[in-house]
């Protein structure tokens, strides 16, 4: 019975292991809370997040926060939802700012109004700390559900050396789509049929693609979705058709943009390597570009076709629903600490995201930093024309309905019009249950 004996031994070992691992951390003393965070930047910043949380714990002996890495923005949403449904909600999450509406519809968020009131402040005063453009994604039905933590806008990055080489003035960056197309043509280099340098690169991977489509649509005068109501998206509209047609033309007509759907990291890599002379990318990549570019670069506003407008991006801090009161309180303390002017300024310098707290720009370190790195100002200046990030019922599937079709267009498998019709149809289907319960539920 050698097998059985081994088996029993194995089982006994597995059992001991399970026992040892399953012992819950029962301890008197500090309130233990988890902070879920996606890593929007490279691994060194995951380490910085550890530093940040350690500093918080050292200053707050009654709270013990643990930073839990949770993958991409999309993965973080899945993990948070699964944890809430399993009865183990984390105390706080750095959540993609456009997921808040969907989570609020599903009753997964704690309304922060009471916590703000308990501190003796008013909602208006609390929100007044942050740039006005960010409030659209934090406030739902006049209640506060999120606290902006790190935010972004898309930017146009230009390789200034290559621009000069091509006879263009990098100090007068393109301001309209026509000028941008012209620049891209002049910056594309060919050897026979082979392109050795692309004029422009725009990322299109899940998450990024939807954001870039919103960017282009907005600068084409349009809207991606109904900002007042989570049941409508405007995919099959002239403004979005114009945006996608222009993108498609860059790829297939002017041939100044590499074909296919390029992920964000590939775009920044090809910009840094000189393979692409311009790129549209988040300000979240600015620190990376600053550290790695071996050439002079410029950042500029996203050019317009009809108007100057961009969506915000980035993430807010939220408290999931269903937490015990003491954990909720501890999470609130953590959130206030992390979004304070000093901390959000520090995080902004480390990442390239801008600090949502306006007072962050009045801290001495930040003033010093901006004097040395004036390029970090562009995203903040662009906030004047920034609007909320698309947020609907079931944001991720509705976004993917569009992204799948846009990828087909960039791959040359569909024409813009037929792609947008298909995307609209798919999105309407995804939104149907919500509309049946809201706008189509008639008295």
């Amino acid at each position, binding site marked *: 019975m050698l097998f059985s004996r081994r088996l029993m031994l194995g089982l006994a070992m*597995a059992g001991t292991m399970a026992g040892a691992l*399953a012992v819950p951390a029962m301890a008197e003393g500090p309130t233990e809370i988890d902070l879920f965070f996606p890593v929007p930047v*490279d691994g060194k910043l*995951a380490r910085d997040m550890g530093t940040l949380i350690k500093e918080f714990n050292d200053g707050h002996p009654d709270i013990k926060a643990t930073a*839990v890495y949770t993958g991409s923005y999309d*993965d973080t949403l899945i993990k948070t*939802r699964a944890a809430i449904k399993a009865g183990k909600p984390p105390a706080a999450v750095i959540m993609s700012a456009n997921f808040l509406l969907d989570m609020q519809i599903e009753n997964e968020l704690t309304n922060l109004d009471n916590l703000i009131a308990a501190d003796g402040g008013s909602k208006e005063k609390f929100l007044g700390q942050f740039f006005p453009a960010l409030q659209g994604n934090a406030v739902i039905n006049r209640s506060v559900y999120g606290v902006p933590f790190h935010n972004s806008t898309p930017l146009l990055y230009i390789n200034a050396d290559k621009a000069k080489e091509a006879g263009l003035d990098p100090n007068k960056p393109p301001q309209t789509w026509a000028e941008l197309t012209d620049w891209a043509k002049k910056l594309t280099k060919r050897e026979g049929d082979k392109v050795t340098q692309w004029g422009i690169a725009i990322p299109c991977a899940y998450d990024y693609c939807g954001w870039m489509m919103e960017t282009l649509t907005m600068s084409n005068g349009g809207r991606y979705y109904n900002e007042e109501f989570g049941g409508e998206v405007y995919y099959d509209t002239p403004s979005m058709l114009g945006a996608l047609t222009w993108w498609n033309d860059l790829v297939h007509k002017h041939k100044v943009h590499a074909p296919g759907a390029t992920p964000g990291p590939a775009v920044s890599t090809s910009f840094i390597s000189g393979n692409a002379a311009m790129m549209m990318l988040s300000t979240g990549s600015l620190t990376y570009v600053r550290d790695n570019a071996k050439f002079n670069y410029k950042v500029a506003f996203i050019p317009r076709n009809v108007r100057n407008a961009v969506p915000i991006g980035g993430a807010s801090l939220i408290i999931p629903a269903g937490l015990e009161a003491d954990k909720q309180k501890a999470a609130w303390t953590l959130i206030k600490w992390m979004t304070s002017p000093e901390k959000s300024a520090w995080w902004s310098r480390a990442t390239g995201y801008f600090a949502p707290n306006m007072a962050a720009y009045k801290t001495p370190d930040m003033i010093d930093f901006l004097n040395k790195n004036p390029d970090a100002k562009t995203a903040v200046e662009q906030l004047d024309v920034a609007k909320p990030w698309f947020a609907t019922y079931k944001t991720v599937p509705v976004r993917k309905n569009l992204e799948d079709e846009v990828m087909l267009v960039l791959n040359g498998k569909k024409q813009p019009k037929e792609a947008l019709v298909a995307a609209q149809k798919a999105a309407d289907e995804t939104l149907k249950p919500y509309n049946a319960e809201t706008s189509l539920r008639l008295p």
Partner: protein
Amino acid sequence: MTFIDRLLKNAPLATRREITPKLGFALTVLLALVWLIPFLWMGVATLRPASDGINLMAELMPSLRPTLDNVRDAWEIGDFPRYFINTTIICSGILLVQFVTITLAGFAFARLDFAGKTPIFYLFLMQLMLVPVLLIVPNLRIVAQFGLYDTLTGVMMPFFASAFGTFLMRQAFEAIPTELEDAALIDGASLLQRIRHIYVPLSLPSFSAFAIISVTSHWNDFLWPLMVINSPDKRPLTVGLSVFTATAEGTQAWGTIAAGTLMVIAPLLITFLIFQKRFISSFVTSGIK
């Protein structure tokens, strides 16, 4: 042609002068080279100093000044020894329990008679059609109810029973002649003794084929451990590695990523190189190709 000729040295005499086997070998060598490129790149990128910049990153040519800085960075960012231990515990724990469950279940479906055997077997197989993502919330709820949220046991639990393994063992057991079992029965062997002394030894190739599939798939699993584990010290390799590979709006440090990836796959790769022959033969004999 000399290289191919050398490879063909051991080929049967009759085929040595034919063109087809030579073409076959040539194609194999070509495919092997293509397959090797990412590994070569990973090795080169790992040793390339960061000061070479991103411009040279795509090149396969090794740097003249190789450095271990990337390895050190990756090692410092992630607690790799801890991740290794966790992944090993997860993979071996799952496999141990699976061996018991698939042997017993496979035997029941192959040799025992009970009411509703066929429908139950098909129900079992239906599990293979479900996308794992679909089961995340129900599984996590059960894991949390058992008090196993944020434990390694919680990561292992949903995989203790395996539809694929049961199917594989059922096929293997059915191929074994019943006469062998009858003989053991006459000698007075109990049910478990018959399984232990007849079925298990004769199905070893299937067991090792299953072990390979089970270990590699759980070694590489990312989403489920990400869902269950919160504590940084319980992260498996995949989750630990992704701390510096997954990015949303930012960018990536390729050298560090290459070094980290190398550390993650090294144990599997080394195991494969050592047991190469046995791996391949177990797949051939179990009919999986």
